[in-house]
């Protein structure tokens, strides 16, 4: 027994005297140790006190006679259950009634090297990568920048459509910079209760500063920044108070980062446009750098496809990555990943060992056009749909300068009975007058084809007309693409400030475009009636026609695609 007492005393001295003293001495020289001491001093005190209580309890138990010890031990499980029950009740009551739990911050702190996304893994955003690399260098060489007298980087804003790899790039920056990475979504700051979001922002930055102190830097990544960074609204009703206070705190903390002079970099990511964000956040000194991470171009798409295809078994003889990349214009990296995953699923469903071109094509179609939804149609309605879609198809193939026919189908998808799927051959950031006119003609072609065959038309033209009308209207009202010489954007000024004469003249021009297009389409389809009937026959037989089949039929008649001629 005396040996046990001696052991307890030694343990007591080691745990409560030597260990804390040693840690304190180490912390005085080592910044990381000091950081941990600062960050976790409450926990350390709690653990120490708990251990002290345990030691005292053991000490007390040892002073008891074995009979009383046995009684105490026998009661202990029940007491532990009671204590646990009380603690649970207390926590539930506290979080329910005092809302102490609402300001809790579930931040995920990860060390840079543990993020494990390397620079080479980031593909398909070469431009953004180049800029981001500079940021990495700035994080690493902060002292050097300061020595030169340069201004250190505070914030980085990534803008762009969803699924383009903003989070991925942020993680790669953290890995390369080798600093801790705290990731949060903007939505996590949003609460009903005023002040809770602000409290979370404070806690987040406090934590980041502590980590930066120990590790030489820290990256805070706030995804969906627009949740807390939209333009502030000052409402007398106070409905926006919480968002405002959260954003104010973010602004204050970002300034605070400067004054505290700690290497904390804030990376924000948003799908919203820059215009919708509060200007105070965008000024230099807060988010100093802005990256626009756009959808990948053809070359980048090829690389992305190569990367994801390397993770699945593919039939190299049939899968032409260049061709697939061309077929997936405007697709984001996330969508490309999804295409490959979907293709693999389709291949597995078809009991194939490898993914082939057909699987990829089907995957693109499924993702782009949605799942097939067969509806029961009368023969006449089915034929009418075939004429309608064949009309679109012929006009698109023969008259459209930029778009390819991807597929024609009379199988219902979503709300439509049939579809002619098209897509540009390459990324185009503007549309020419000819392309817009061709768009209108393609839209009107379904109507013309129905009328040509049946002398009457169906309500299936509604969406076509809507699209065509909007295009024609924009051409005249906004883009100056009319023969009457109206130049300027008439939608930029209030309608009541435009004279009735001008409005009428503009509308006449819109109708004129419509009529010219209609005439062209009628002429074309009457001229190519044989091809029209052929496509109707093919569609009624096969229900779906791929690009290759469509191209082959046109070639039979000696026709070449207009976009291919350019």
């Amino acid at each position: 027994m005396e040996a046990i007492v001696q052991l307890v005393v030694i343990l007591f001295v080691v745990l409560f005297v030597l260990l804390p003293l040693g840690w304190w001495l180490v912390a005085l020289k080592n910044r990381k140790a000091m950081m941990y001491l600062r960050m976790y001093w409450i926990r350390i005190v709690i653990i120490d006190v708990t251990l002290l209580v345990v030691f005292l309890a053991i000490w007390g138990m040892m002073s008891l006679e074995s009979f009383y010890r046995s009684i105490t031990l026998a009661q202990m499980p029940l007491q532990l259950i009671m204590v646990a029950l009380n603690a649970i009740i207390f926590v539930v009551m506290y979080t329910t009634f005092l809302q102490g739990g609402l300001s809790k911050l579930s931040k995920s702190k990860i060390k840079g090297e543990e993020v494990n996304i390397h620079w080479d893994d980031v593909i398909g955003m070469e431009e953004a990568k180049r800029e981001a690399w500079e940021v990495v260098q700035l994080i690493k060489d902060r002292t050097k920048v300061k020595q030169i007298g340069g201004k250190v980087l505070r914030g980085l804003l990534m803008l762009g459509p969803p699924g383009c790899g903003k989070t991925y790039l942020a993680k790669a920056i953290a890995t390369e910079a080798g600093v801790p990475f705290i990731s949060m979504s903007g939505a996590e700051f949003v609460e009903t209760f005023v002040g809770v979001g602000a409290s979370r922002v404070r806690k987040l930055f406090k934590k980041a500063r502590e980590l930066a102190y120990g590790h030489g830097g820290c990256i805070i990544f706030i995804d969906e920044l627009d949740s807390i960074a939209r333009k502030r609204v000052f409402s007398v009703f106070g409905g926006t108070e919480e968002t405002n206070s959260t954003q104010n705190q973010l602004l204050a903390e970002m300034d605070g980062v400067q004054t505290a002079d700690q290497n904390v970099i804030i990376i924000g990511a948003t799908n919203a446009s820059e215009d919708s964000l509060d200007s105070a956040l965008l000024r230099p000194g807060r988010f100093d750098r802005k990256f626009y991470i756009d959808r990948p171009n053809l070359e980048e798409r090829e690389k992305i496809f190569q990367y994801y295809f390397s993770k699945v078994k593919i039939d190299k003889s049939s899968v032409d990555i260049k061709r697939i990349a061309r077929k997936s214009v405007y697709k984001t990296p996330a969508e490309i990943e999804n295409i490959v995953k979907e293709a693999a699923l389709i291949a597995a469903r078809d009991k194939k060992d490898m993914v082939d071109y057909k699987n990829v094509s089907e995957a693109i179609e499924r993702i782009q056009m949605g799942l097939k939804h067969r509806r029961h149609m009368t023969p006449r309605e089915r034929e009418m749909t075939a004429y309608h879609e064949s009309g679109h198809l012929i006009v698109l193939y023969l008259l459209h300068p930029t778009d390819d026919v991807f597929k024609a189908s009379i199988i219902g998808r979503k709300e439509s009975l049939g579809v002619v799927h098209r897509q540009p051959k390459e990324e185009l950031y503007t549309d020419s007058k000819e392309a817009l006119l061709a768009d209108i003609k393609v839209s009107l072609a379904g109507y013309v084809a129905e009328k040509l065959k049946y002398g009457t038309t169906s309500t299936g033209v509604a969406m076509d007309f809507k699209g065509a009308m909007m295009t024609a209207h924009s051409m005249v009202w906004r883009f100056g693409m009319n023969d009457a010489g109206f130049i300027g954007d008439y939608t930029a000024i209030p309608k009541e400030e435009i004279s009735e004469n001008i409005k009428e003249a503009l509308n006449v021009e819109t109708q004129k475009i419509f009529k010219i297009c209609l005439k062209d389409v009628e002429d074309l389809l009457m001229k190519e009636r044989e091809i029209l009937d052929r496509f109707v026959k093919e569609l009624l037989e096969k229900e779906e026609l791929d690009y290759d089949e469509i191209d082959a039929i046109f070639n039979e008649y000696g026709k070449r695609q207009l976009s291919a001629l350019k």
Partner: protein
Amino acid sequence: MLLAFTLFGCAPSYPKAEFKESIIKLCKDEYNIDVKVETVGKTIAIYLPLSNLIDFTFAITKEASEKIGNVILSVSRVALSTDAKYDFYCIIAHDVRIPDIQIVIIKSIDDVKRFFLGDISRNEYTKRMLIDIRMTPQAQKEKSIREVLDKMVVDKKAQEQFLSEFFRNEPAGLNEIGYWNGKFYIKDVTLPEFLADQVASRIRIAFKEDKKLAESFLVKSSKGSYSSQPPRSIFRFEIFATATKVVVGTKGESNIDDILEESLKVASAVIHGYRFKDYEYIDIINQANGGFMRVSQADAEKFYSKKIKFSELKKKVY
């Protein structure tokens, strides 16, 4: 933490090897009382010499009572926190001025444990303790024999030899336990004899404590014994009780039966309380009027749990 507690909780505070010394040391260290300790079988005997055990009214003095209480507590503590297996302890307190008088207290260690764990009440705990103030049996015996031997002019050495050979033996019953001339006269207490004495004692208490019974009856003596002679094992309670006034019952019978009924109530409750099963019958005899009844173990249990009436038991013949 639990592991540590379990580890420390395993070792007994008073190991078997140091059991007697532990009691002596505890009494000395904590209460400055000198005791002697002896054990026989599963019984511990503690001799407690006191300077003023009784006053001139033959009542236990307050000081003696406190000392006895402290010794009881010390023995209980050691008995509960040891790995030695003992069932009973017996405290023999002497007044050193008049060693012919002794107080013998016998307790079951299981009762002590149950009391500390709150399994039985303080009142029940007190009733389960056997307390007897009596003339030291060995002293009485020795005096009588010495007188005879003196008359026979036997020399002292021969007297000592004679006494040692024929009269200084282990006591036959609990009433012969004692301490005389530096020697313990103790026996290994068994549960049935402890129960027999306890029932006899509690019958006396019952007829004193209950106001109605005390007004109606006078219990002059009660004695309990347990016989386990094959083929039968029987508890036998001999009472000498008389009615102080005669009350006619609803059926016109004499209330003298109430003595047997009350005695049976006490006996069945006590035996049931110890979950003792090793007996066949309980015999109750009122020596004052020759009243007798025999109850089997099963009927005694039924009577305790009020599943059978006394009048029905009376009619039963075993």
